[in-house]
């Protein structure tokens, strides 16, 4: 790394540098953004380059922004105005639809979950590339759907959309996939505070099929120390084709 030889094209080290610099095309940037959320080693390397480059921004002259910008921030965050779909063309733009799914599901949580879980007959095999969703209800009965998880096989990522805020103070939510009678396999720790896409390790993608159960347990910081869920399971739901 300290050698001045070039970083090999296609290496993680080169990708981290290119991303921090901002020289990647849109779709590559988005895939790197996904990866940052589930690969802490890679995220650290990106952060290191960002820290190195950050001081360059000291050269950019400040420009006073018009008052309307703060007014809009204030309105969007703190006033009871109708929620506005952000105009950003980031990966989150595509989340609008899942947000709608989650909102719809909240009102009819019990029914929705019942339908997803008790769908009769053999588990349908999803066509390649089909989206799969699980409405993960709180296991504390009487509570609404906690989160909608949508698995997008083309991205190899689960998009988590919280439908209700959850207080899990001091504990880290961890996502698991359970297929049949197999032991739960960890899909990594997640953040429930913000809608996000969570990258699924390639080796586990074959498990992401209709009928598999997604579950969230609360674990010590950094995730389960044993590789199996150790804390309470706060939400669970089955994947179904949508």
């Amino acid at each position, binding site marked *: 790394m300290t050698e001045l030889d070039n970083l090999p094209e296609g290496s993680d080290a080169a990708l981290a540098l290119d991303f921090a610099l901002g020289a990647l095309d849109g779709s590559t940037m988005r895939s790197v953004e996904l990866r940052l959320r589930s690969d802490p080693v890679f995220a650290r390397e990106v952060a290191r380059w960002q820290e190195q480059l950050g*001081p360059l921004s000291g050269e950019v002259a400040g420009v*006073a922004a018009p008052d309307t910008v703060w007014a809009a921030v204030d309105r969007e965050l703190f006033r009871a105005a109708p929620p506005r779909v952000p105009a950003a063309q980031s990966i989150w733009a595509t989340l609008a639809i899942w947000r709608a799914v989650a909102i719809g599901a909240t009102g009819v949580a019990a029914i929705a979950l019942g339908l997803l879980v008790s769908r009769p007959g053999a588990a349908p095999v999803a066509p390649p590339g089909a989206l799969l969703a699980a409405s993960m209800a709180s296991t504390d009965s009487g509570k609404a759907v906690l989160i909608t998880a949508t698995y997008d096989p083309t991205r190899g990522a689960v998009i988590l959309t919280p439908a209700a805020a959850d207080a899990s103070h001091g504990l880290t939510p961890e996502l698991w996939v359970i297929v049949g009678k197999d032991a739960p396999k960890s899909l990594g720790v997640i953040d429930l505070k913000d809608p996000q896409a969570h990258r699924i390790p390639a080796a586990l993608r074959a498990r992401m099929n209709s009928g598999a159960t997604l579950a969230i347990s609360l674990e010590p910081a950094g995730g389960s120390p044993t590789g199996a869920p150790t804390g309470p399971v706060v939400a669970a739901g089955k994947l179904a084709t949508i």
Partner: protein
Amino acid sequence: MSGAAALVSTLARIGAGDRDSLKMLYDATSAKLFGVILRILLERGEAEDVLQEVYITIWRKAAEFDPTRASPITWMVTIARNRAIDRLRARGSRPTTTLDAAAEVRDAAPTADVAIDAVNEALRVNAALATLDPRHAAIIRSAYFEGLTYEAMSEREGVPIGTLKSWVRRGLMRMRTVLES
């Protein structure tokens, strides 16, 4: 308290849900972030939209900010750059008013107070850049300030992409060596 330390505690209060602190942060940093965004997008209306998104993102992510991993201003600038670059990529090309708008940006208001801390850091980084081949340093600056892809820079500079990547990566690695020595 230094500017950076003040920002760290402001971000901590924002992470805890303190709205007044978000306004304080906005007043202290919005000119800097707007400058960064405008330099990438050049178009004011779009830059204002992105600035708004950036503070909404900061409000939502403040609790995740880790002062042991990143400096507060770099963390915020990174959010602003990524949002602006996202927007630039979605647009596909830069507006035709480039030169006029760029001139307007250069003539803008002075650097915000919070950036004073960053001046020494900027000088160090500039000193490190100055050790590079001038062409390599220029390309790194273009990528950083204008948010251009390798492809766009390659076209503009008339240098093959592979060569350009090699300049940038070797340049940044050399900078790292200089900064860490």
